[in-house]
């Protein structure tokens, strides 16, 4: 009996002390030593599918050579929402993640994204957002419902924040901002409204969501005061809500705005895709100008492009006669590239193969008179090329060969 008591005591002591003997475990992980940054000019975003993988590779040349992503490049798969998240300047990457309310500044070191600094960054309704570099050190980020912040990216501090003063309309969703552009001490904003009960489209079986009107507001900058509002119903959805996808460009000192009624962005089947203008020195949309792109392209959709300079605008056209399902917008060879002569309004098709690409991807890059764009159509060896259009010569050239990915869905200039 006495022995049993001792045994019981041993068991109880063991039972109640068991875990505490192991409490002192502590982890310490020394961070990997970063290697020196590699100086490059461009960043190419490659993608493989199912499950999706996204990779950034830096290079100094997009006009020749080849790029493979096997074993190379920084894995950025978790930078939701993919390449749309990236903003680049002066060798750094910036990524705003609305789900985490975080703006992070990265540098590309040893083929990894190394965090330089992350700051809390709450944008109301920041699920979709866009950006504009006001200068090399000042970044405007705005959410699609008008919340904005201006950031000093050197110190990673917010210098100004608020919400664009845009009217709401009873019974309608919005305003939904398609672009915001600081130019000539004015902030230009384009927006539209959504309507669940908007009349059914003329095209059979199609339903509209965006109302048939494009709206514009122009504010004094930097005070963002004295708004001037205007509207135009020749198209709708001025700009678009995908970060890094062409919205505006400046030609002859005037601001030009590309519209996007396309169903992936705003969904209005009755309005054409085209280009508006706000002339320098005015604060309203120019009622005398609208370049109807769809009319010249068999009623097709235009989304994405780049202003090459010299009055030449490259646009991405989606052949709606070939794109029969939603999936085919991104995965079938349905895209053509055209050049718009801004002086004459004429459109010329570029002699490149039919391409496939996420039409909402920021993968067309204008830089120093050229526009680079991927033709994600694989040759017999499974490779494809980045092409470039040179506004000086008017020629289109096959550039760097891309290997081992399903698509290039991001193109960025770092300098």
């Amino acid at each position, binding site marked *: 009996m006495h022995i049993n008591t001792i*045994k*019981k005591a041993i*068991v109880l002591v063991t*039972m109640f002390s*068991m*875990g505490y003997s*192991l409490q002192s*475990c502590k982890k310490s*992980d020394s*961070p*990997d030593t970063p290697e020196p940054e590699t100086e490059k000019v461009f960043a190419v975003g*490659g993608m*493989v*599918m*199912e*499950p999706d*993988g996204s*990779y950034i590779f830096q290079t100094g040349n997009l006009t020749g050579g080849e790029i493979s992503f096997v*074993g190379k*490049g*920084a*894995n*950025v798969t*978790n930078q939701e929402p993919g390449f749309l998240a990236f903003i680049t300047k002066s060798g750094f990457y910036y990524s705003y*993640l609305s*789900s*985490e*309310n*975080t703006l992070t500044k990265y540098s590309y070191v*040893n*083929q*990894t*994204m190394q965090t330089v*600094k*992350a700051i*809390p960054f709450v944008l*109301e*309704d920041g*699920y979709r957002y866009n950006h504009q570099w006001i200068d090399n050190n000042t970044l405007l980020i705005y959410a699609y419902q008008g919340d904005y912040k201006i950031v000093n990216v050197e110190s990673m*501090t*917010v210098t100004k924040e608020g919400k664009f003063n845009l009217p709401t309309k009873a019974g309608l969703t919005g305003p939904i901002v398609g672009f915001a552009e600081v130019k000539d001490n004015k902030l230009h904003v384009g927006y539209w409204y959504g309507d*669940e*009960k908007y009349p059914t489209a003329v095209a059979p079986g199609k*339903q509209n969501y965006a109302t048939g009107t494009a709206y514009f507001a122009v504010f004094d900058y930097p005070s963002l005061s004295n708004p001037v509002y205007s509207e135009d119903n020749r198209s709708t959805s001025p700009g678009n809500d995908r970060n890094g996808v062409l919205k505006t460009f400046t030609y002859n000192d005037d601001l030009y705005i590309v519209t996007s009624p396309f*169903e*992936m*962005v705003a*969904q209005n089947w009755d309005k054409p895709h085209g280009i508006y203008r706000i002339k320098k020195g005015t604060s309203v949309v120019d009622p005398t100008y609208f370049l109807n792109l769809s009319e010249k392209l068999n009623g097709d959709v235009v989304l994405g492009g780049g202003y090459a300079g010299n009055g030449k605008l490259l646009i991405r056209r989606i052949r709606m006669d070939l794109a029969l399902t*939603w*999936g*085919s917008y991104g*995965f*079938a*060879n349905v895209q053509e590239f055209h050049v718009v002569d801004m002086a004459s309004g004429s459109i010329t098709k570029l002699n490149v193969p039919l391409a*496939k690409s996420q039409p909402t991807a920021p993968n067309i890059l204008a830089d120093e008179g050229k526009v680079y764009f991927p033709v994600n159509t*694989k040759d017999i060896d*499974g490779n494809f090329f980045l092409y470039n259009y040179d506004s000086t010569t008017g020629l289109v050239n096959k550039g760097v060969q891309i290997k*081992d*990915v*399903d698509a290039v869905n991001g193109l960025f200039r770092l300098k």
Partner: protein
Amino acid sequence: MKIFLTQCGYMRTLCMICCALIGGFFIPIFAQAQGGNTLEKRISIQFENIKLSAAILEMGERLDCSFVYSNQLLQTEKRVSKKYTNEKVADILMQLIGRRDLKFKASGSQIFIGLKSNKKKRISGVVTANGTPVPGAVVAIAETAVVTDADGRYQIKIDAEEQTYQVRVSSIGFKPFAKIVESKGEGDVILNMAMAIDEQSLEDVMVLGQTEVQKIKDSGFNLNTVSVDKFKNSTRDVNQILNTTTGIRIREYGGLGSDFNFSVNGLSGKAVRFFVDGIPMENYGVGMTFNNFPVNLAERLDVYKGVVPIELGADALGGAINMVTNKGTKSYLDASYSYGSFNTHRAALNTQYVNQQTGFLFKLTSFYNFSDNNYWMHSNPKYDALIQVPDGNGNFIEKSVRRFHDQYRSAMAQGEVGYVNKKWADVLVLGMLYNDHYKEYQTGARQSAVYGKVNRNGDYFMPSIRYKKTDLFTKGLSATAFMSYGVDRYAVVDTSSTTYWWDGSVRSSQNKHGEIGASTPQSLTNFQNTFFLSRVNLMYELNANNKVSLNQNHSVADQKSDEELSQMQFTPSGQTKSIWGASWQNNAFNDKLKTEVFAKLFHFGLNIGEVTSGKNQRAAQKRDYNKYGLGLAARYAVTADSRVRFSYERAYRLPELLEVLGDGVNVIPNPDIKPESSHNLNVGFDMTKWLDNHLYSLDVATFFRNSKDFIYSLPAGSTSSQFMNEGKVLVYGGELEARYKYTDLLEVTLNGSYQKTKQNQQYIYGTETPRETYGNMVPNQPWLFGNFFLSVGKNNWLGKGTRVQFDWSTQYFHSFFLTWEAWGSSQSLNVIPTQLLHNAGITYALKDGRYNIAVESKNLTNELAYDNFRLQKPGRSFNLKLRYYIH
């Protein structure tokens, strides 16, 4: 370019572990397998062109015996030339004579050669000890051995002409004995035997509790059957036990009540179906899952891998798990309560009363779970899993925080009344089940998305009736039937206009959206789903070696939902599922070969009402599917202790309502979607050997799955999605489990699973564009994991009727890549790290297990554990459990 990846180093390590296990565990078995009669002797002998009669004579000289045979039986003039090296005498004779219908019998210094008799006689009876049946006793005659059933019954067939034979009986805790039996004539023999308790060995013996498990496992299915007896004093739930078996990987999103992803041999999600006593879990509503079932409610867990028997009536692509609760007819009471870390309370009451005179039965099954789940979250930059909060100056600081919105509560009670062991029914029981749950959500799919108010709550009730009868209408026909109707009501609440940081402070307020999705407005969505299920299983025993079964499952589910804030009515929808199954089971070669061939017929009907508003308007729709599945499961007993298994099924998973017809709001219909399908193949070998008080057991299995038409959700617009047939994968691998047990003093189990999932989709969907990842290993799939389990216990150490037991378990998960391994620089790839998690517990049982007290620690070394990317699991926890069990 295609890249094929291998991890040869790990495979070598796994092979070495396997070899060591096999060698270490089984050398003693083979060492003992020597000796026996003359026919079993091994000799080396050579014949060169001599008559058969001379060859037999030469063997007789060598063996110092004589052969007795009829010249009419053998071609004695036939000349033979052959060399035999270390072969059994019986095998040499068989080859020399060249007839398979002969039998050999050694008696003294004579070996008789005669014709085999086709006739058999049956020896059957009951093995008892002190008047009580002994289940699990081994009864053997010559080379044939069987195990007694739960009532101590056995049956063996021997040649009818055998007049004298030796019957050997053994069972742990009892003295083994052998008995010479004489029975003249060819009639069946009843032979009841009484065993004596071995007092000495009983010192270390408790009930083995494996009889039923062994019986279930004795089929060709690739099946893990887990007896939960040894876990009943544990605070683990059913999932945590399943997670330690081979081929299963459960990836949990958090603590008690969290969501989880369950994979069997690499296939997961809807490919795996769950059942409780054969009733599909989806019929129990959203509030009941395997990770809130306390272990005390289960008797055993059957895991069917890849090939699923017709009884479950399921369209299971990758496998099925059936939790079997106590369905015996004895009275018992099992009550337990545990309290532990994170303010976790778990109680279970499981009791049954049976009046043996009247057959009246009352059963109550119930549990209650509560936890704050407020475990610490630690920032882990190494694996890109930061926990950061604002410092008030526009910057972040990393810190450890407690989870603040993860409370979980669930309760269930099921009462059953009826009768057992009546003329008109073995069992006829009416039941009523009620379940209530409340669950808070702390994070989204990643811990970087923090929720502070989102929750789900609801209740469920289900009346049911079950019936069982053997020898219904005619001898050999048995029937089981089940019918239930369930109503599941729950609400998903995402009404907060405020979002939160990890420390609980406000992140943003006055949002137009909820917390779950920045693109979706605040919502309070009510669901009401109803389920009707009927299941009938008929089995007819044609004769001792042949059975046929017919199974029919019919279920009807209807869904209604509305959104309170927008007053939006979602479209009502319904689905009907009928699955017919037929099987034929055959035993051949003295039960050495068991074969089951089965066929399944699936019918699936879907309907959804008209959508008259919103962006995706459409008319009411209907859709029907019919599919046929086939399968086979066979096992061959190589020896009395070892078996090989083979199974195959052409399996289907039918599309679900949402996948075909959408939800009328955000999910666009795809009426052309096809069922997922898979060719599933398993080959296995298992061996179990008792040597005195030592048990050695080994189970090795390999599997192959060729699956296609996986149903995926693809985004279709900024807020819409559509399901499509997209995926095609090959999965293959192997698993091994070795076990050693010495009475009830010591038990050691080691298992490992290796599996690889290969992308097999050559072209991008709907195009002829090659997919770049074709042929590569699919990322984010655990591919190497294993478990070690050690139990040391001592009976009567602290007094008569007591038992002290120490349990230790270790789980190993090898790291795996979150994204494609070959793409991107190696230093930038995200990984789920290698983890080694330890659990330990001590149980003290008194009064022969009536009172039990246990202390248990999970994640003893407080590892930062992740099943999923950026989703930290609980750290170290302690639990105290008290249990009262009387039966």
